[in-house]
């Protein structure tokens, strides 16, 4: 999610009290305005607690946002040491540990950041996860795997790829903890839980939104021109009273240098996740 794109949309007059807004995570990292973004969302949540809903993304994790930009931004812009106990960086990450992992809209639409991975079968599993929650990356329990699945997994590259597949891009070391799930998994999940759609984010898609599993799963990605490199549009989805999902496009503003970290050094050190249309084959470099 990018701050300036978001507030160019849906309109400048503001209609926050008329709708519920659900955000799917990744509020920090990569861009230059993580502090503005997360402070605005926290303030909105306090001001409109029943209208603003924040889910947790894989970057709402101190182990990730320490490496992908947020810690550096706190250090540069606030003059703080992110490792200090009472730093803004740590305090906001404490807040992240309380964010919910999933939401259900009107018993019809399941919303989460990454996906259902290999272990999410029923919504009751999510309800049983206690918070505050620290994400454990070296998985050693079923619940830890479940959390990684929800925050990190992706759909397979097409509806033709079924079952559980390795996720080479996000799991270059082949631990098997981060996977891709096929359309068959999606349909089984929807049937078991008597819901109609899965709504997720986590991957850059060219038009801001993309259908999967015959239209049962939607990927929505609001950040435009991802990392200043892909010229993709962003989108948000409006859900009508008749449960139609209506995409609202957000077009790039051609100001990548103002919004994204575009220097070669940090991008080489922390290479961006390839957009969904490039998710094929292993990467040359792993995350550092």
């Amino acid at each position, binding site marked *: 999610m990018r701050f300036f794109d978001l507030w160019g949309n849906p309109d400048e007059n503001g209609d926050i009290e008329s709708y519920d807004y659900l955000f799917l995570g990744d509020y920090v990292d990569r861009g230059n305005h993580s502090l503005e973004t997360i402070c*605005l969302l926290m303030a909105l949540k306090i001001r409109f607690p029943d209208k603003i809903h924040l889910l947790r993304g894989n970057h709402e994790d101190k182990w990730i946002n320490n490496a992908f930009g947020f810690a550096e931004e706190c250090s540069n*812009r*606030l003059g703080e040491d992110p490792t200090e106990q009472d730093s803004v960086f740590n305090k906001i990450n404490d807040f992240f540990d309380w964010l919910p992992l999933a939401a259900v809209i009107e018993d019809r639409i399941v919303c989460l950041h990454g996906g259902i991975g290999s272990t999410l079968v029923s919504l009751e599993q999510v309800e049983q996860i206690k918070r505050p929650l620290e994400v454990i990356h070296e998985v050693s329990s079923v619940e830890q795997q479940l959390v990684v699945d929800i925050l990190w997994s992706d759909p397979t590259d097409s509806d033709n790829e079924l079952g559980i597949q390795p996720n080479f891009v996000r799991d270059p070391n082949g631990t098997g903890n981060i996977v891709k799930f096929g359309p068959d998994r999606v349909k089984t999940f929807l049937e078991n839980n008597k819901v109609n759609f899965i709504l997720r984010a986590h991957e850059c898609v060219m038009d801001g939104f993309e259908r999967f599993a015959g239209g049962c799963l939607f990927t929505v990605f609001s950040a435009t021109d991802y990392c200043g490199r892909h010229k993709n549009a962003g989108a948000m989805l409006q859900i009508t009273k008749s449960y139609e999902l209506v995409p609202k496009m957000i077009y790039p503003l051609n100001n990548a240098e103002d919004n994204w970290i575009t220097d070669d050094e940090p991008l080489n050190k922390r290479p961006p996740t390839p957009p969904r249309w490039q998710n094929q084959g292993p990467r040359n470099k792993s995350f550092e």
Partner: protein
Amino acid sequence: MHGGFENETPNIPTNSIMKLDLIAHVKGNAQLLQKLENAFQSHLKGANSQVSGTKSNDNSPTLSNSSRATTPPMQSLAKANMKIRIGKGEIEQKKGQAPQVVSFNGNEPRDKNSKNIESLHQLFLNHLLRPKEWSASVDGQTYFAFRRDHILALAEEA
């Protein structure tokens, strides 16, 4: 009054005592000037009915030179034991600390035209929901409009 603002950060109180010449600021608006004069007159009635220049029976003061004479000096207000009401919120300062929201009266009618700040989160909203007013001058690498203690308090409240 307590809580001034720097030009560069107009939404962040400076935690200092600041003198404002309200008369000079509102003299072009007769309605505001009348409200101001009423407020000061009622304050003075309670504090000292013998203040020089006060017309105790005048319920509808008009814009005139005499209104200046009825205005107490700002210092006398600063010395008084007063909490500063910012919108619905009451904010007071403990010595050496940032202003803290100490109470919140939800029953008080809200003035739609008021630009007052209700509380800490409203400080952030007032600034961050108007990115076009400041984004052009912001270098995202070096500048953030809010202080650490404000962000910490916001995260705690969230």
